[in-house]
């Protein structure tokens, strides 16, 4: 079957489609946005979206869907954009993804749907993420979320953690007629979406809208509950009458490098730095009470090469930093951050110190950071991760003057739930053991997914786990079989 099947609503032939250039995402000019917290990407107009949608080859076997952790029917939603049925497109996405306005902004599409797009063999891939974002925002503007009317099953599910995976489970299960309550340790719903990802990449208003929609669907939320401390998993199951529990508590404790000077004032974990900014709004001090160090005119570096590192350093720039460095011990090719974020960061003037690692933080003698002593690296043989191992170059030490350093080298498992839930199996790194297929843990009725199972990953992978968990929780609740 030819890519342009007879049913297609697309007026262009496959050859014509390839000639249409990928529509650029309108964005704030780099110079302006580097000093504000407004969103970088401004979103497609309807015209741009329809123009971009025309490029879809409508493959008979769409690899984009296969490479989407939640299996969005890309071909179908894009076709609906072609004919101008934007709400229909949104509804199609919602069948697989309860948070399209969020994934449309933060998914690493180049590694997933767009990475396998047939167009990319010849030209640039279809802008699937941009299109997803467009229809989700369109739906929000129209205010026409469809609240499904389903019969209650009488089953109750407790969800621990209100990040992307917990929200996905909640959204999926409420639509299957179950009663759902989400417990959140912090005072705001959203997990990493509110404390981790900055406003300029994911406006908090977008997150609030998605959560409001969940509330409309009947999902209940309870903040200020640290499961494991405030209430245990066993109490939820035995005393509060929940039929199943889903644990989606996220990545957990920030790792430090264990080098001298890490306790100096001015050295932050990325989690703390971003939490002060995003959750506590410390950048609005003194309107908000939570303080942070004044970054105006200061030199700031982040250590690490992931999305969290870039979120932190781009935030520092927006808070007035004079110089903003990324210190990464490997090279560009190994950087785990999304390509678009690296590109944006370079445009904004972030100074990338690649193949470089700090070995010590230096002090003024009064407890404050003054510099990072760094060493240059070269790449040696591949290590356990398959990436070439960075090896220090003898005699390459130099001091980078800094007043703030942010450590973004990853996280380890938060033990609170595991240590208070007897019989809940963990792996040797302390993450919860869960079946990859069903997200079932070693405890009957208890499921887990997202970073607390896999270690730090992406929003969409956590959502994929949430989707699998929701299906398997539904099966468990309807059959009673474990």
């Amino acid at each position, binding site marked *: 079957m030819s890519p342009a099947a007879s049913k297609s609503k697309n007026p262009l032939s496959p050859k014509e489609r390839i000639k249409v250039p990928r529509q650029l995402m309108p964005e704030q000019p780099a110079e302006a946005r580097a000093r504000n917290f407004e969103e970088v990407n401004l979103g497609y107009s309807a015209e741009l979206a329809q123009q971009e949608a025309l490029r879809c080859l409508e493959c008979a076997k769409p690899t984009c869907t296969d490479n989407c952790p939640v299996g969005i029917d890309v071909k179908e939603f894009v076709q609906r954009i072609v004919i101008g049925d934007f709400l229909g497109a949104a509804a199609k996405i919602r069948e697989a993804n309860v948070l399209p306005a969020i994934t449309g902004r933060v998914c690493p599409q180049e590694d997933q749907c767009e990475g396998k797009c047939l167009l990319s063999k010849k030209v640039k891939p279809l802008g699937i993420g941009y299109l997803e974002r467009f229809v989700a925002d369109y739906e929000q503007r129209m205010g026409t979320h469809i609240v499904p009317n389903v019969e209650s099953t009488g089953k109750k599910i407790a969800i621990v953690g209100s990040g992307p995976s917990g929200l996905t489970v909640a959204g999926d299960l409420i639509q299957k007629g179950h009663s759902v309550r989400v417990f959140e*340790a*912090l*005072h705001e719903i959203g997990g990493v979406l509110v*404390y981790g990802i900055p406003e300029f990449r994911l406006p908090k208003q977008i997150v609030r809208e998605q959560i409001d929609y969940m509330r409309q669907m009947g999902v209940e939320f309870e*903040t*200020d*509950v*640290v499961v494991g*401390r*405030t*209430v245990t998993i066993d109490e939820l199951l035995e005393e509060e009458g929940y039929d199943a529990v889903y644990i989606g508590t*996220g990545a*957990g*404790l*920030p790792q*430090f490098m*264990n080098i001298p000077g*890490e*306790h100096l*004032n001015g050295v*932050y*974990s990325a*989690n*703390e730095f971003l*939490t*002060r900014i995003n*959750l*506590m*709004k410390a950048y609005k*001090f*003194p*309107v*908000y*009470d*939570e*303080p*942070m*160090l004044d970054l105006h005119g200061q030199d700031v570096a982040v250590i690490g090469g992931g999305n969290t590192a870039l979120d932190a350093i781009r935030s520092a720039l927006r808070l007035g930093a004079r110089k903003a460095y990324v210190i990464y011990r490997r090279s560009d090719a190994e950087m785990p951050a999304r390509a678009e974020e690296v590109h944006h960061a370079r445009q904004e003037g972030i100074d990338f110190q690649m193949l470089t690692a700090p070995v010590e933080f230096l002090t003024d003698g*009064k*407890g404050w950071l003054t510099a990072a002593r760094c060493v240059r690296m070269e790449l040696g043989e591949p290590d356990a991760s398959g990436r070439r191992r960075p090896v220090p170059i003898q005699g390459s030490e130099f001091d980078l003057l800094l007043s703030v350093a942010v450590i973004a080298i990853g996280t380890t498992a*938060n*033990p*609170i739930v595991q240590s208070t839930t007897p019989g809940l199996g963990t792996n040797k790194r302390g993450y919860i053991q869960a079946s990859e297929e069903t997200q079932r843990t070693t405890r009957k009725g208890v499921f887990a997914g997202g970073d607390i199972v896999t270690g730090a990953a992406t929003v969409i992978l956590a959502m994929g786990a949430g989707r699998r968990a929701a299906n398997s929780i539904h099966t468990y609740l309807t059959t009673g079989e474990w």
Partner: protein
Amino acid sequence: MFKIVHAQFLAPGIKRFVIEAPRIARKQQPGQFVILRIYEEGERIPVTIENSDPEKGTINIVVQSAGKTTSLLNTLETGDSILDVVGPLGKPSEIRDYGTVVVVGGGVGTAMAYPTAAALKRVGNRVISIVGARNKDLVILEKEMRAVSDALLITTDDGSYADKGFVTDKLRQLIENGMPIDLVVAVGPIVMMKAVCDLTRKENIHTVVSLNPIMIDGTGMCGGCRVLIDGKSEFACVDGPEFDGHKVNFEVLVQRNAMYRTAEQQSMEEFKRLQKAEAEEGEVCAATSGARRGAQR
């Protein structure tokens, strides 16, 4: 929202709040704390749990005015509410029969030492308590501490009540009198805890201290509360707040607690200015309730 069912000053600047928090009341154990946020623009601060009543679903917290948030909190009255209270956080005190335990409470730290002293007493320890304060007015929980102690020793810095001197003077006397001490628990200002540890280290008496670094989430997520224990970073919110006092690097704790001093002073001065301004306009009540809503800016 968490309702304040009773609020009462225990001493000038030190207030006890009984708060409706049924989940926390059911789970609270000695040594644990809560994190609270008063209003939408407020910061999150850790606060001692002095006691709880699982039947009534209430917890007691004791707060000393120091910066803006604690000063604002202490303007709240019975019937007011606190926006967020989360807990109980931290590992509970390790309660078992050690033999003879000396519990040292300094200032408002006495409120955190009290439930631990009570629990240690309940499991059969001989509990000698030492409570220290700057002056007579600031001695808190005397009656409560006396009720759970085999002996209660009190010191004031200025001698305005009981014996003049520091808690370490009393502890030194106990040691010099040859009392066998199996454990010392010290909760109070950092200088006090450090002085206690300096003393007990020489005598090789195991000493537990409760640390109070700057915190945000209280669940281990941010790492802001990291303290140096035996040269290694640990998180006070999940690994503590109690640690072996002989392994604690107190200098780093003091240094890190001073990280936001400039901003804290700025907040406090602004808070005082507004309180004064509104008081002069004769709207004292409005000032505090306005402050609560964050409207003072």
